[in-house]
């Protein structure tokens, strides 16, 4: 398989579970080496975790022993940001994530949605150029998910990072992405690359009532359905 992601593009990868969506992301992030072929970021092959790449995991990876504030500060601390600048950027991050009032809370006291907000903001606060997201909202309820979609889109409109977003939720992919890559069952190959023709900025709630949304959903669902329906080998 082969695909390219343009600068500032929001690409979603959807496919049946076990098709290797997450593996693609792990290869992009330098966590897993490809068995064949090459992965390049800005024309350079990926051999290790590349700089300027942020990764939001499906699992909750907020550090349980750090408060919200100190979780969001992590990336800045690693980069040697100290003192007033650190504090200002962390405060800004907390504000953007809507976590005011929870600065000194430990993750164990937060809901799943809030923890994922912390994880997202912790990644964004260091201003990555490329954002890899592996079903980051997979474990959340529909309402929380929609709220976070709106927030993610808002943050993305402001910065236009290059995003590769893996999900098995087609509505999520259509809501967020410019382009959707549909994968086949294992062994995963690219089945379809589809441009989402819905204008931005998008309203995550109203979007779902529009004809464009229904059309996009219909087209991709038909293709994805073939993959889900066929019996395994």
């Amino acid at each position, binding site marked *: 398989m082969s695909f390219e992601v343009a600068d500032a593009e929001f690409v979603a990868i959807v496919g049946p579970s076990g098709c290797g969506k997450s593996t693609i992301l792990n290869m992009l992030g330098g966590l897993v080496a490809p068995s064949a072929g090459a992965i390049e970021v800005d024309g350079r092959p990926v051999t290790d975790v590349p700089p300027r790449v942020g990764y939001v995991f499906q699992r909750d*990876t907020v550090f349980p022993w750090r408060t919200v504030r100190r979780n969001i500060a992590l990336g800045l601390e*690693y980069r040697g940001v100290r003192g007033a600048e650190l504090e200002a950027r962390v405060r800004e991050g907390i504000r953007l994530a809507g976590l005011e009032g929870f600065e000194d809370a430990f993750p164990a006291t937060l809901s799943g949605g809030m923890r994922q907000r912390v994880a997202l903001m912790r990644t964004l606060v260091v201003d990555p150029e490329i954002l890899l997201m592996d079903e980051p909202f997979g474990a959340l309820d529909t309402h929380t998910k929609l709220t976070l979609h709106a927030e993610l889109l808002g943050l993305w409109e402001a910065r236009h990072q290059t995003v590769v977003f893996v999900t098995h939720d087609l509505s999520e992919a259509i809501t967020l992405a410019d382009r959707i890559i549909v994968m086949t069952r294992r062994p995963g190959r690219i089945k379809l690359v589809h441009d989402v023709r819905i204008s931005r900025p998008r309203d995550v709630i109203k979007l779902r009532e529009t004809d464009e949304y229904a059309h996009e959903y219909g087209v991709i669902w038909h293709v994805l359905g073939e993959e889900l329906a066929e019996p395994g080998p």
Partner: protein
Amino acid sequence: MSERGRVLFWRLLILVVLIGAWEWLTGIKAISKTPGLYWIDPFFISRPSMILRRFAYLAGGEARLSIWAMALSTVQSTLWGFVVGVSTGFAAGLVLGRNDRLARVFEPYFIAFNSLPRIALVPLITMIFGFGLLAKIVLAWTIVFFIVFFNTFQGARSVDADLIHSARFLGASQRQIMRTVVVPSTLAWAFASMTPSISFALIGVVVGEFLGGESGGGLGYLIIQSLGTLNAADMMVALLTLGVIGIVMALGIRQVERRLLRWRPEYRQGA
């Protein structure tokens, strides 16, 4: 009465009943022609009133070696053994826990040494380090080190790989990963071994004091000396003091644990 008060009430009641029964039962004379024969002989287990008298004597200024000096000596050796054992055990656990090859190389040595009964080392340690403080610390260390080491090792191996990955994506160096991910996540495991460590440090020190003679003093010395003079009361004074020391140290550790692991849900309430 609150739940707390009720528990406290029963604790105190049991204590009073035990002490009362002890005092009373050891006071019953056996029906016998021989005078001074008891049904339960206080010669062997002493009596609370006698123990209290001996304690007052040992705590006062008249005794050649006061109970305070002996307790202090025991506490000192125990804390040293504990601190040295915990820090080296934790460090070794971290290093080997994060380095598979090193762990495989050292595994048989650690297992072999750990399965030695530490008491068997006492004569050797005495030969090398003499009878002083150092010998007791070394003895306590040989026990504490392994308890902490094995726990830390397990903890360091089971650090969540996704947490390490996310730290790397946030730009952490290996050192920073160690400091911000591995150490905090391993601490919870290490703390599980702290309370037993204090008890074992105490065991090591008291065994060392059995041999140590008067030079280092200590409660172990009081026990051995009481055996020589067949003085059950003094022995009980030493044992009860050791019990109190054990409780105080365990409570102290729990306080530190509450503070360091306050992020864990089980410490959240009232912490």
